[in-house]
């Protein structure tokens, strides 16, 4: 009995009123969802239309919903941290709790918010932009999503069961090793990321193949939309960076679970090797989340300037350059680990070089605006605000790249500010811009512009209020990951301002969520499929697009061909009868079941119940085996169904 009590006491996180509240909330929300689904008899619909779907557009929506939820979770984490830091010597959170919170904040924001958000946009836009019916491997795409989801859920579970990781999103050894961190928290980090990471790797392969092999006839590489280009380049980075994460996580897992010595000092391991491997992945990772953002801005800025993108070729080459250079700059994250002046000089230089292709892009955006007819829509505002905000982040990045100066900035709030400027001013702004821009394509209605603009201004201004003072407080010697700080160091007022800014961002986020709710009910419906007078193919089909995307695959003649199609009246050919049956992949329950097994196995390994890990592994293998022997995984959409769909959209001719 005592044993069981002891076990349960450790199993469920106890002793924190906030966590009990969360427990109750989770149970209530789950029950609520189950009740609603049952009451409205939606279980079958949910399973058939969503959980088993292999349609990239729906998978994209699921990614984005999950990402928004994670933004909320990460954002609440951020607000808790900011509350604790608002004034010196506060006891709102204790040290352990604070440590867990910044760890989950960073990990969730980067891996379970930024990544799935942009991957969601890949799924929504890329197949449509290249005139394909789906991605190259729709089944694998569903597997990727569900692995991400299983990984994210496993990671979030740590909050209520067993305890959260507390060694930072960078999880440096030896602090994250078993000796100094014996709980299960780090295991959650390792396995959650591992599962999600495998899914991401598959996404990279999937989108690279899709873009290389499935473009509409006539669309040579240099005629692709810029967002598609950014996804192509990003896929390359994913394919070559994520294996490194896989290995690093596996190594630390083996260290922790089987007492091996990759990173333990005791038997000759080098803790620094973790930092090395982590950043070999970690630096390319930040370009994984920023390049698609660049792609989104290229689309939005060109569309709302009502002209072609300036310097198309330079835009492409600069992205390729960034992706290659991005692989040889990783040491700038540990200049201060004493790898020697030769190493530091080399990596300083390689890092600074990235400013050049990035600058090329910035100036090309500016000159896309030039001679344009600029429309200040919500999406455009996010894109415009990106330029100065990201510039500040990028330039402070270059300052960090100056190795001897970095000895003074490293791990200070100067660094914190740098990366929030690029991550929020770049990636998050792009996520919001892309969301507003493609929202009609996803759901068939337009987000309210007035609310959207309010959200924009509140969020954008608060963002600067929150993060600009951090540069200063960093130079005044405040280091990151301090759960509290003494008074009298000149940090107090700056921290208070930051906290006010953070809550302002929360307000902006609430307005945005309200906008989603409002627009779903009352928002303007998009009947044309082309609400922005777009330039690329995704606007050539209905909103939302039918399962098969296009009744006929268009033939492409130039960059921004849809714009010219509309001019020349060619766009009607896409939906013109007669039709032919269309070959589409079948839905499948295997991906989600497989993810469940991953989850089970992962959960088992978190608690070092090896049998359960093996059980999960066997389940996964069984799913693969089942899939390998499956033959009928495609179907044809008959002509009359296509006719019906096109007629309902008013496109039949």
């Amino acid at each position, binding site marked *: 009995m005592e044993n069981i009590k002891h076990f349960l006491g450790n199993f469920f996180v106890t002793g924190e009123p906030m966590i009990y509240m969360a427990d109750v909330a989770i149970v209530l929300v789950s029950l609520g969802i189950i009740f609603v689904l049952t009451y409205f008899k939606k279980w079958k619909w949910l399973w058939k239309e969503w959980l088993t779907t292999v349609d990239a557009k729906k998978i994209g929506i699921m990614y984005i919903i999950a990402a928004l939820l994670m933004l909320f979770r990460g954002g609440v984490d951020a607000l808790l941290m900011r509350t604790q830091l608002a004034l010196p010597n506060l006891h709102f959170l204790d040290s352990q709790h604070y440590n867990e919170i910044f760890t989950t904040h960073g990990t969730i924001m980067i891996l379970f918010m930024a990544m799935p958000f942009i991957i969601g946009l890949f799924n929504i836009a890329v197949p449509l932009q290249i005139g394909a019916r789906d991605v190259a491997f729709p089944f694998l795409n569903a597997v990727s999503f569900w692995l991400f989801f299983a990984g994210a859920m496993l990671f979030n579970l740590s909050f209520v069961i067993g305890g959260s990781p507390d060694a930072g999103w960078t999880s440096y050894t030896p602090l994250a090793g078993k000796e100094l961190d014996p709980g299960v928290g780090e295991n959650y980090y390792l396995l959650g990321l591992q599962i999600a990471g495998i899914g991401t790797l598959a996404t990279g392969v999937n989108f690279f193949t899709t873009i290389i*092999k499935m473009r509409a006839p006539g669309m040579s590489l240099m005629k692709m939309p810029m967002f598609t280009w950014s996804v192509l380049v990003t896929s390359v980075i994913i394919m*070559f960076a994520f294996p490194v994460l896989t290995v690093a996580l596996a190594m630390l897992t083996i260290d922790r679970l089987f007492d091996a010595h990759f990173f333990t000092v005791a038997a000759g391991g*080098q803790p620094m*090797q973790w930092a090395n491997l982590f950043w070999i992945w970690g630096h390319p990772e930040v370009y994984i989340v920023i390049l698609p953002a660049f792609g989104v801005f290229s689309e939005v800025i060109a569309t709302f300037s009502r002209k072609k993108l300036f310097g198309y070729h330079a835009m492409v080459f600069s992205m390729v350059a960034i992706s290659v250079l991005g*692989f*040889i700059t990783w*040491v700038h994250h540990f200049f201060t680990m004493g790898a020697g*002046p030769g*190493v530091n000089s080399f990596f300083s230089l390689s890092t600074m070089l990235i400013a050049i292709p990035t600058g090329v892009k910035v100036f090309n955006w500016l000159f896309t605006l030039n001679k344009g007819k600029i429309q200040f829509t919500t999406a455009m505002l996010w894109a415009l605000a990106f330029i100065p905000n990201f510039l500040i982040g990028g330039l402070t990045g270059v300052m960090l790249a100056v190795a001897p100066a970095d000895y003074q900035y490293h791990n200070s709030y100067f660094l914190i500010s740098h990366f929030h400027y690029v991550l929020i001013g770049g990636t998050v702004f792009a996520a919001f811009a892309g969301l507003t821009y493609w929202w009609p394509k996803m759901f068939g209605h337009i987000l309210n512009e007035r609310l959207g603009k309010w959200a924009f201004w509140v969020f954008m201004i608060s963002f600067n209020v929150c993060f600009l003072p951090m540069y200063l407080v960093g130079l005044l010697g405040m280091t990151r990951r301090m759960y509290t700080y003494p008074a009298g160091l000149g940090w107090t007022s700056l921290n208070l301002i930051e906290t006010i800014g953070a809550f302002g961002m929360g307000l902006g986020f609430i307005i945005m969520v309200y906008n989603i709710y409002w627009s779903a009910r009352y928002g303007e419906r998009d009947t044309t499929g082309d609400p922005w007078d777009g330039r690329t193919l995704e606007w050539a089909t209905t909103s939302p697009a039918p399962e098969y995307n296009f009744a006929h695959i268009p033939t492409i003649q130039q960059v921004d061909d849809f714009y010219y199609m509309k001019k020349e009246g060619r766009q009607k050919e896409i939906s013109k009868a007669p039709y032919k049956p269309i070959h589409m992949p079948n839905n499948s329950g295997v991906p989600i079941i497989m993810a469940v097994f991953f989850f089970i196995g992962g959960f088992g390994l978190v608690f070092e119940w090896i049998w359960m890990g093996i059980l999960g592994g066997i389940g996964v293998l069984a799913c693969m085996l089942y899939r390998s022997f499956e033959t009928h995984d495609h179907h044809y959409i008959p002509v009359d169904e296509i006719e019906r769909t096109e007629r309902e959209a008013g496109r039949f001719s």
Partner: protein
Amino acid sequence: MSNEHTQAHASEHTGFPWKHVIGLVLSLILTFAALWCVTSFAFSPALIVTVIVILAVVQAFVQLFMFMHITEGSKVWQITAIGFGAFIAFCVVAGTLWIMLFAL
């Protein structure tokens, strides 16, 4: 390209699999050459390691071209992907050793 391609396949369709046999013989020769370098010479370790790494790279090419049909399908992209992968692999190994062991 397509000409050479057709011929290669023609010989695959009938007759003795010369290409494969040559591939096997080459890889065996390269393997034993490497072993021989290691067991029979007293050169500096650096030199020996350099030589056997070169032999290994040559052998990788033998596999890629004799057995793996890398020149079929999307030839250019496949070679690029493997090439870029090799570049990254090199950066990882060389970079790590430089940073962790020979930091100057």
